[in-house]
């Protein structure tokens, strides 16, 4: 194995190292760099001194490095000296001062450093650093910075790993540790690498030691089957505990939670809505994303304001070494990015993506539009039928786009960054109606406009005060807006004047979130790290819902400020136990209350392979997304603020226990969770008097409920090798209790009993083949118990459907197989091209989305509304380096 082989090469003197390679067609610089990397030696030379141009090939195999260097430097006007593992090369005549290169030996010392991407210089957050043959290790922080205490010797070996990158062994040397260390990892790509000695392997998905934490590599995600190209949220739906059978929502249903209970942080600001195109795609461009980490439950005190889970997305900084450019196209969208180094210490990144009208876009768009319930409202005045011809013209136009930009500037101890995000969906399904009779015309129109999007920006300052104290200050702004106009224009003539009346509904929801936070990490000792901080948010949420121009069903203008402090202590005890107690206290000015959220999680290493984990915690949610049942357009939702009155503050308690068994190549993990949910809200006009009444208080139709979510997740993963993948199984149950629906609790609409996922990836040369199969128990739905017709007093007949208990029936089981093949190829010496073929729903399974019921000729007819059938896609992408 290459690993052991490399290790044996650690010799006291670099000159004695036996070189095992030949170099042909390379420059001297390339050869020296490769020798340094391959044998972990430090070669110190001045770039200017090294002659350019390809050297004649020579066979070095079996020769000691000393000889190799002599051969390489012969007649180049250079000389060299070797001290231990260090080689110094200078121009002939320039003295080599050995004293400079002799470093003091150290034992039991601390070391700080940064983990970076070798190609782009991008810092890598949450990378793992472990001292070989010890349990001593740490994880880099969000800026890629780490400090390790109590390193036994200055020749210890670090194992540095990060999802999507090759694991690197770093052989410490007295010189290396003389200042902060920069460890550069090589991103995994599918091309055969020229240098592959210290590399171990890459992972697509990584389960963290911490309870319920998992991350996925945005680089490796590309090889997974997808509908319209690489998708962040869809990839996470392949994990146990995250529901995968919600084809119409890219939001995450984590352990019985709903997408709004999942906190989505992008470079520190909260993103309130993550869907593109009715939820078929997530609103983040993978080109802009460096790291994604999901906390499925029991999350730490640092995070708050949500009941279920946290997804922390770290945006890319951009290449700080070289200018880089890339572009991609699929059947759904085009995208591009540019990375520009700013001086020597900064970088700028810009990415953009936009959909276009393709068969795939149209398929998805149509499947959602056909399903929209009947037209908004029939015109109030029907002056007989069959009077003339009416023509309806509809030209739906719709698209989505998203943009990311980020500028980062890094000083020795400070990092400044400014991140910006904007994404929007525009759906227009409006039509105009022309009624003609006897040559006369009357115009009207139907509006069906939906627009939603996010704006977010954050400014961050990180400072490393010293080896053990690190601070982050962040100011952010996030805005979410959603507008819906489902109206019909009627022109009414009255007293000789033309007056336009809109019938139908208009909805406008706007949320603004201004946040300031300071997070601090204080590494008191290797076994004790204290994290504490302040967070302060100001929310401004408006929601307007009107009907027929005149009736304001909801017109809310809510403001609130939320101030929070938190402490958490990461303690390592008895060398086996990690204990993280924490507390979060928030003052919410709407209710004038202080909310305490105590939490604790622990990790116990039973032995080297088996770990026991447990977590308990309390969680509050103040800004809530409320589902509004809408008969005209399916369920709609809006964000508003809890007030402790008609809209309660959400509250959850998590109990989680689990264990994992991990070997070098395999991981088996099991976790069980139980969540108690209180203060759930729903808004429904289904029980409201529907015709205008002057004395109706539309605030009366907020309903409160409670719930319980419980389940078990099992995971078996093959982590490394040509074949990788996992099997995930989730057994779950979510029960809600809303008194408005009756005394009995009922299954939540997103409840799935069994969910099984197989994710497979096979690497074959430059190809990666992958397949994923998803199976989920059918979702609950409410079915009719019967139907009846009523002959109205005017002689017309209206049909009605009588309804049974809520959600007692189940849709047919959901399953689907997706496959993909990705080929990565080099263009020129540096550029990389990538072509991907993907088939969604390979065996064309007819999965039911929901059912509709209609009473036709005294017969109750049931119709299935289905999800997408077999859908192919091709993606092409290119990047300069």
């Amino acid at each position, binding site marked *: 194995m290459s690993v052991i082989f490399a290790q044996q090469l650690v010799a006291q003197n670099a000159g004695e190292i036996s070189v095992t390679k030949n170099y042909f067609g390379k420059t001297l610089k390339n050869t020296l760099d490769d020798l340094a990397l391959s044998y972990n030696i430090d070669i110190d030379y001045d770039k200017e001194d090294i002659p350019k141009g390809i050297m004649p090939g020579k066979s070095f195999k079996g020769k000691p490095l000393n000889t190799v260097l002599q051969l390489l430097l012969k007649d180049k006007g250079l000389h060299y000296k070797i001290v231990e593992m260090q080689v110094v090369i200078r121009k002939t005549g320039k003295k080599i001062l050995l004293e400079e290169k002799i470093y003091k030996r150290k034992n039991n010392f601390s070391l700080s450093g940064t983990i970076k991407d070798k190609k782009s210089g991008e810092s890598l957050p949450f990378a793992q650093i472990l001292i070989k043959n010890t349990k001593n290790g740490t994880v880099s922080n969000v800026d890629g910075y780490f400090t390790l205490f109590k390193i036994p010797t200055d020749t210890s070996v670090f194992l540095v790993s990060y999802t999507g990158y090759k694991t690197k062994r770093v052989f410490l040397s007295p010189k290396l540790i003389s200042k902060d260390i920069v460890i550069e990892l090589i991103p995994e790509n599918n091309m055969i690498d020229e240098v592959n000695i210290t590399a171990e392997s890459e992972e697509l998905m990584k389960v963290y030691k911490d309870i319920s934490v998992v991350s996925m590599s945005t680089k490796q995600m590309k090889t997974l089957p997808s509908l319209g190209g690489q998708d962040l949220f869809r990839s996470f739906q392949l994990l146990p505990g995250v529901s995968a059978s919600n084809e119409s929502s890219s939001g995450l249903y984590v352990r019985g939670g709903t997408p709004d209970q999942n906190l989505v942080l992008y470079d520190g600001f909260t993103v309130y809505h993550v869907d593109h195109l009715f939820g078929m795609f997530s609103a983040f461009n993978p080109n802009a994303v460096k790291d994604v980490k999901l906390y499925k439950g029991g999350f730490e005190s640092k995070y708050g304001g949500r009941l279920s889970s946290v997804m922390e997305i770290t945006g890319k900084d951009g290449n700080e070494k070289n200018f880089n450019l890339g572009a991609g196209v699929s059947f759904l969208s085009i995208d591009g990015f540019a990375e520009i180094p700013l001086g020597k210490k900064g970088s700028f990144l810009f990415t953009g993506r936009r959909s276009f009208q393709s068969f795939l876009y149209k398929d998805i768009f149509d499947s959602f539009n056909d399903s929209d319930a009947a037209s908004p409202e029939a015109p109030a005045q*029907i002056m007989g039928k069959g009077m003339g011809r009416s023509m309806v013209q509809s030209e739906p136009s719709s698209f989505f786009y998203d943009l990311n930009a980020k500028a980062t500037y890094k000083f020795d101890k400070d990092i400044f960054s400014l991140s910006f995000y904007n994404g929007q969906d525009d759906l227009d399904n409006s039509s105009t109606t022309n009624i003609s009779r006897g040559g006369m015309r009357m115009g009207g129109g139907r509006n069906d406009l939906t627009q939603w999007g996010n704006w977010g920006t954050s400014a961050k300052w990180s400072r490393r005060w010293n080896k053990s104290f690190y601070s982050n200050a962040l100011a952010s702004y996030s805005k979410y807006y959603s507008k819906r106009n489902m109206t019909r224009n009627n022109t009414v003539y009255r007293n000789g004047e033309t007056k336009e009346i809109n019938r139908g509904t208009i909805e406008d929801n706007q949320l603004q979130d201004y946040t300031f936070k300071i997070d601090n990490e204080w590494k008191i000792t290797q076994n004790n790290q204290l994290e504490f901080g302040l967070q302060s948010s100001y929310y401004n949420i408006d929601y307007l819902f009107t009907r027929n121009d005149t009736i304001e069903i909801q017109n809310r203008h809510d403001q609130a400020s939320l101030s929070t402090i938190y402490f958490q202590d990461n303690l390592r005890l008895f060398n086996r136990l990690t204990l993280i107690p924490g507390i979060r206290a928030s003052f919410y000015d709407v209710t004038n209350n202080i909310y305490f959220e105590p939490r604790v999680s622990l990790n116990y290493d039973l032995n080297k392979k088996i770990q026991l984990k447990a977590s308990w915690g309390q969680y509050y949610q103040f800004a809530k997304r409320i589902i509004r049942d809408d008969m005209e357009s399916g369920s709609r939702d809006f964000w508003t603020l809890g007030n402790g009155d008609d809209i309660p503050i959400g509250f959850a308690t998590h109990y989680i226990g689990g264990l994992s068994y991990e070997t070098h190549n395999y991981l088996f993990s099991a976790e069980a969770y139980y969540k108690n949910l209180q203060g759930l809200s729903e808004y*429904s006009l289904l029980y409201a008097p529907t015709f205008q009444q002057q004395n109706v208080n539309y605030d009366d139709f907020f309903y409160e409920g409670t719930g319980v979510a419980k389940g078990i997740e099992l995971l078996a993963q093959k982590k490394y090798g040509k074949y990788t993948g996992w099997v995930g199984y989730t057994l779950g149950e979510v029960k809600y209790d809303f008194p408005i629906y009756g005394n009995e609790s009922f299954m939540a609409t997103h409840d799935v009993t069994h969910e099984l996922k197989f994710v497979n990836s096979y690497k074959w040369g430059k190809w990666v083949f992958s397949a994923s199969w998803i199976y989920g128990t059918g979702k609950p739905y409410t079915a009719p118990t019967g139907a009846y017709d009523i002959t109205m007093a005017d002689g017309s007949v209206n049909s009605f459907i009588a309804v049974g208990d809520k959600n007692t029936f189940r849709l047919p089981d959901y399953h689907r197989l997706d496959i993909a093949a990705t080929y990565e190829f080099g263009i020129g010496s540096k550029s990389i091209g990538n072509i991907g073929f993907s088939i969604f729903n390979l065996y064309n399974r007819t999965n039911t989305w929901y059912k509709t019921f209609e009473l036709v000729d005294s017969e109750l007819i049931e119709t299935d509304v289905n999800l997408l059938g077999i859908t192919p896609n091709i993606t092409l992408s290119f990047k300069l380096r």
Partner: protein
Amino acid sequence: MKNTAIITVMIFGFLSAITSCEQNNIDIDTTTPVVEAYLIPGKPVEQVKLTKLIPYLSDNGNYVAEGISDAEITITNNNENYKLLPVPDKSGENQTYNIDFEYNNKTISASTITPQKPTNFTMSQNIIYIDRLVEGERPNMENAIYEITWDNDDGSNYYISIDLLETEIDPVSFMVTDTVTQTLSTPSVTDVYNINSRLLRYYGNHRVVLYKVNEEYANLYENTSTSSQSLTDPYTNIENGKGIFTAFNTDTLFFEVKEY
């Protein structure tokens, strides 16, 4: 791998404990009656219709709503029982009427209040002149609006029914070939109804009836969901049953459409 074996046993033990009960029985509702009864002052209660629900059985063919014939129905007002006969000279405003009967050991009941008679029911013009449109001629592009108004201070729901009273049909245009002699509006909170001259189809006498309706009736016109994602019980004012028991009040006026 001993540990994994233990884990597996533990987990599947827990699995079977959690999944033990799950039901998917189809509830066929055979006991809920559907009521349909309207009270209009001065008019006889023509019928109180009682039927059973059409059951939800997706594989069943045509199913006709089964009538209920063995129920004894009474309508009461001021503790007086009424048989289903016309009651002349009875004040028709603000009277509470109750209906009840026993069915399948349950008392099915409902209550309604007769609304007040509409006031100030007037039309801007009682005679409307319209050009006859003959094939080949240029149509008159003019369009006149005739307003029908009434008082609506309390935000009540009204609907209008316009009926052609002629037995001989005389269309205003050669393009009108069908015979649709009734025009209806749906209940809404309004105090005006506009008749557009372009939409008048026949010459002759027309009757306009304004119905003041109760909310329980107006509710039946609201779109109801047909999707399993948001299915809820439709509105009804019948206790232990479905359907409608409601009262109206009306006013009537007439107009005539004449040729120029």
